[in-house]
């Protein structure tokens, strides 16, 4: 009796598997809704699970490939490739999620069919086991995919930050390290040379020039004082002149080289203010007798002219 039952159960299982294969060939999409027979629905759910498992494997492979591509792109600091890979990774994650949902739905369908039919305990337990395994594997896969995606995103963010930092640093320096070193050495040499030049040449030369200038200034002042003092003294004696020509110092006398014969318009002499020789030196006066031959003619001519003006009596 038990043998017959076992055979009947094996037959039913075989039939169920055949129907599942048929259903799997007829449609690969997950079956939802009402099933004509529990066997066909269960087979469809199984097919969905198998298809989902294969898709998950495929997606995992693609995700690995995309992850590698992202690493390469991140190493090469290629932003476009990183962005494209990130989008592709997100799309793969979305597809994985959809497949996981389909698989979960298929597992639920299987469970519902199993509960509906209650025909084969072995099949039910197998289906439940498969569903649980698939769900667990899907969950584990999702967790792994999420962690991997998060890690990839973290790597991408780190690479992006590193690339930005490198770009900023390069833009700030803009010169190679050797060039900067050479510039620093050149600037230091220049500063040293200027310091030496200033210490041993410029400063002593400036000191000498200042000394010479001071000496020349003093000598010039003394000479100018000696030369111009008579003129200043003459000025202080309120000598009024009618032209602005320069004065000469001739035989210790201040004279004007420009004779004002065409502008002899004296404003009136100051009778009580006789000008004197510079230095108040009294000029020598020779006393000669009127019988001197040279003086005789002078006297005669002077008296004649004085008589002509009527100042003395003839």
């Amino acid at each position, binding site marked *: 009796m038990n043998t017959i039952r076992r055979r009947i159960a094996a037959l039913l299982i075989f039939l169920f598997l055949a129907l599942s294969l048929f259903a799997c060939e007829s449609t690969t999409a997950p079956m939802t809704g009402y099933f004509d027979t529990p066997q066909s629905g269960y087979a469809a759910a199984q097919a969905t699970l198998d298809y989902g498992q294969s898709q998950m494997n495929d997606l995992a492979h693609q995700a690995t490939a995309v992850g590698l591509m992202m690493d390469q792109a991140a190493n090469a600091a290629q932003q476009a490739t990183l962005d494209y890979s990130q989008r592709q990774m997100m799309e793969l994650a979305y597809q994985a999620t959809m497949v996981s949902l389909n698989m979960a739905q298929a597992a639920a369908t299987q469970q519902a069919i199993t509960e509906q039919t209650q025909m084969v305990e072995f099949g039910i337990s197998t289906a439940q086991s498969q569903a649980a395994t698939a769900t667990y594997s899907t969950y584990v896969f999702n967790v792994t995919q999420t962690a991997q995606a998060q890690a990839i995103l973290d790597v991408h963010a780190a690479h992006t930050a590193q690339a930005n930092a490198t770009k900023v640093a390069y833009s700030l320096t803009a010169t190679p390290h050797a060039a900067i070193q050479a510039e620093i050495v050149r600037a230091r040499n220049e500063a040293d040379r200027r310091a030496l030049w200033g210490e041993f040449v410029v400063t002593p030369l400036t000191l000498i020039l200042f000394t010479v200038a001071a000496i020349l200034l003093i000598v010039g002042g003394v000479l100018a004082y000696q030369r111009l003092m008579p003129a200043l003294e003459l000025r202080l004696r309120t000598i009024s002149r009618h032209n602005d020509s320069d004065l000469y110092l001739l035989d210790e006398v201040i004279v004007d080289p420009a004779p004002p014969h065409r502008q002899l318009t004296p404003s009136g002499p100051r009778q009580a203010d006789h000008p004197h020789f510079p230095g108040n030196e009294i000029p020598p006066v020779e006393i000669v007798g009127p019988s001197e031959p040279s003086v005789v003619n*002078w006297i005669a001519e002077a008296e004649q002219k004085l008589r002509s003006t009527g100042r003395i009596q003839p």
Partner: protein
Amino acid sequence: MSASRYLPAAQSVAQAIPGILAQLGLIPFISRYVLTETEQGHAWLFAVLEVGPQNHPEDYAAAEVLHYLSTALNGLPVVISESYGLRYAVLLSSTN
């Protein structure tokens, strides 16, 4: 009579003439001063000039210059003597 009694006045005039000429813008090319007194009692002071032709001697003989000299010397008569040289003749004594 000795002319030495006019010596202080002659020295005063001799000291003043270069400045007066300078006031007029003339270079006082005076080489020497000669004091003498005639028998009539006229005391003359001659300021001998050595003015070259390039120094415009006619400027020294201008009437304005003579008048200016006379006025500056308290009205003493001043004339120009041009024979055998150029000189000013200042009459130090009174004309009366």
